[in-house]
């Protein structure tokens, strides 16, 4: 056990070995004395010693009259969990926004495809011809639409599409 203490002091024990050993040293007076002696030897060899008095005993006596310190627990794993969740949520939000933008820019970039599928281009012109007052209203209020210009356009397109469908019926 003393040899392990010696290695522990030198930072040469792994955590798995060091943690239980530290617990044992704390509970065992003889091992605590080894810990003290080995540190004293190191200090003497490095010429640190200025006092032969072992203050550890005096401080130990004073500590007994001190109220026990109880620091709030650190919830490190929870903190890590929280950070991981935050990062995941951020990525999800970014991905969602990016996906939405891509979706609408795809609509914007490929008007031919969209027109081919739904005749939207012609529908829009049909709508403007069929009901110019609504069209003007929608254009005038485009800036108040909740999303980007793309989104506003898409809403407008949806309205005209519905009207066209009604017309077809």
């Amino acid at each position, binding site marked *: 056990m003393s040899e392990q203490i*010696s*290695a522990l002091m030198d930072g040469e024990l792994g955590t798995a070995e060091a*943690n239980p050993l530290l*617990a044992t040293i704390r509970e065992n007076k003889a091992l605590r004395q080894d810990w003290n002696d080995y540190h004293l030897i190191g200090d003497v060899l*490095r*010429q640190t010693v200025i*006092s032969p*008095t072992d*203050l550890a005993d005096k401080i130990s006596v*004073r500590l007994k009259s001190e109220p026990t310190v109880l620091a709030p627990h650190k919830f490190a794993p929870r903190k890590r969990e929280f950070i991981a969740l935050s990062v995941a949520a951020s990525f999800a939000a970014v991905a969602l926004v990016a996906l939405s933008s891509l979706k609408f820019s795809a609509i914007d970039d490929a008007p031919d495809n969209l027109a081919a599928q739904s005749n939207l281009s012609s529908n829009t012109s049909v709508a403007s011809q069929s009901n110019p007052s609504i069209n003007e209203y929608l254009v005038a209020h485009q800036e108040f639409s909740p999303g980007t210009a793309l989104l506003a356009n898409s809403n407008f397109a949806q309205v005209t599409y519905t009207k066209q469908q009604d017309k077809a019926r």
Partner: protein
Amino acid sequence: MGDREIDQQLVERAQQGDKHAFELLVAKYQRKLGRMLSRFIRDQAEIEDVTQEAFIKAYRALPSFRGESAFYTWLYRIGINTAKNYLVALGRRAPTSTEIISEDAEGYEEGELLRDNSTPETELMTKQIAMTVNAAMDSLPEELRTAITLREIDGMSYEDIANIMNCPIGTVRSRIFRARETIAERLRPLLGTSKDKRW
């Protein structure tokens, strides 16, 4: 587990109410802190009082220690403040901020062994401890003396020592331990901590 991790482990135990864990930190750092305080306070008895006070303050402040700096760096700051307050209370000159800043807690190099104004008794005891350790070192077999010197004075890792001494790491570990134990055996009667007196 490195030095800082060991300290952190002990601090966390102490923060959960384990006073023995804090005592291990006291045993480890009392001389280093006392040596640092001796730069500001001349009297040996006063140094001991301030050292004790600094440790007690550190203990009380443990809940606020979050491990952002090394334990000794934190303790060092408490020690400096305790010394300043002590000197101010006595109407003596406290260390200036320049003196404090120029001091590097982490890389603090040890120098003098003893102040001139120690009492004859403490000086004698200190000399006896130093002489006993030195005599024990001289009596060590060469391989033990080299191993502990490379570790304690040169601060080398076991791996480096093993390379230098051309032996397995396990042998280095064993040699350093045997060296420490041999010296400790010689010291214990002087310190009154012989193994037969511990139980």
